[in-house]
């Protein structure tokens, strides 16, 4: 499942809630990654951040990488939750999670989801720092 959120979310609460829908005793492994907002970046204090996205394409892209992960590895399920809009330091920005019988598949799939998301999903960050607003230039260009 994929979800975009306007408000801060608790990744542990989301994982707990989502996992209750999975068949008990069938998954033996869950790897997940949570990205959250730091209050510093490239040497500057960051007070706030705005995450712009491309409504429609974002959801379609996130669903596509979930489908791709499920084709590449024997997963029972996977989950992506991503924030958009105004974000405060310490807020959760992204959660990716993958459930499988054994650990290799869950690690590989969780990593795949976050890397594909970071490299290709249409999100743009604008940081509010003490020296003004700035768009964050790409750190991990598509195709690299």
């Amino acid at each position, binding site marked *: 499942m994929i979800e975009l959120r306007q408000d801060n979310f608790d990744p542990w609460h989301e994982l707990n809630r989502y996992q209750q829908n999975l068949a008990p005793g069938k998954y033996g492994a869950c790897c997940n990654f949570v990205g959250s907002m730091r209050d510093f970046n490239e040497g500057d204090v960051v007070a706030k951040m705005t995450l712009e996205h491309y409504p429609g394409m974002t959801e379609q892209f996130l669903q596509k990488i979930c489908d791709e992960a499920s084709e590449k590895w024997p997963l029972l399920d996977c989950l992506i939750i991503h924030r958009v809009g105004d974000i405060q330091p310490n807020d959760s920005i992204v959660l990716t999670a993958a459930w499988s019988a054994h650990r290799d598949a869950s690690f590989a799939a969780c990593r795949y989801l976050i890397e594909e998301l970071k*490299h290709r999903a249409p999100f743009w960050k604008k940081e509010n720092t003490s020296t003004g607003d700035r768009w964050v230039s790409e750190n*991990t260009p598509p195709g690299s």
Partner: protein
Amino acid sequence: MKINVKFFASLREQIGQSDLSISCDNAPTALQVWQQASSQPSMPANILCAINMEYVEPNTLVNDGDEVAFFPPVTGGQQ
């Protein structure tokens, strides 16, 4: 034919538009849509294009009613 064009993020701010609609006589490429919509002859190499929400190369042909989006590199964050 009528084509819907979108610009995002820093590109939206530079061009000063987020959504617009253009008219063409023949099916243009995404690059030709860029030229007409942005009034800039060349497209910077790092600009990404999508037609109907799928990534495409700038030489891809656009059809009537398509949504063509242009945006700067996505901000993935450091590994």
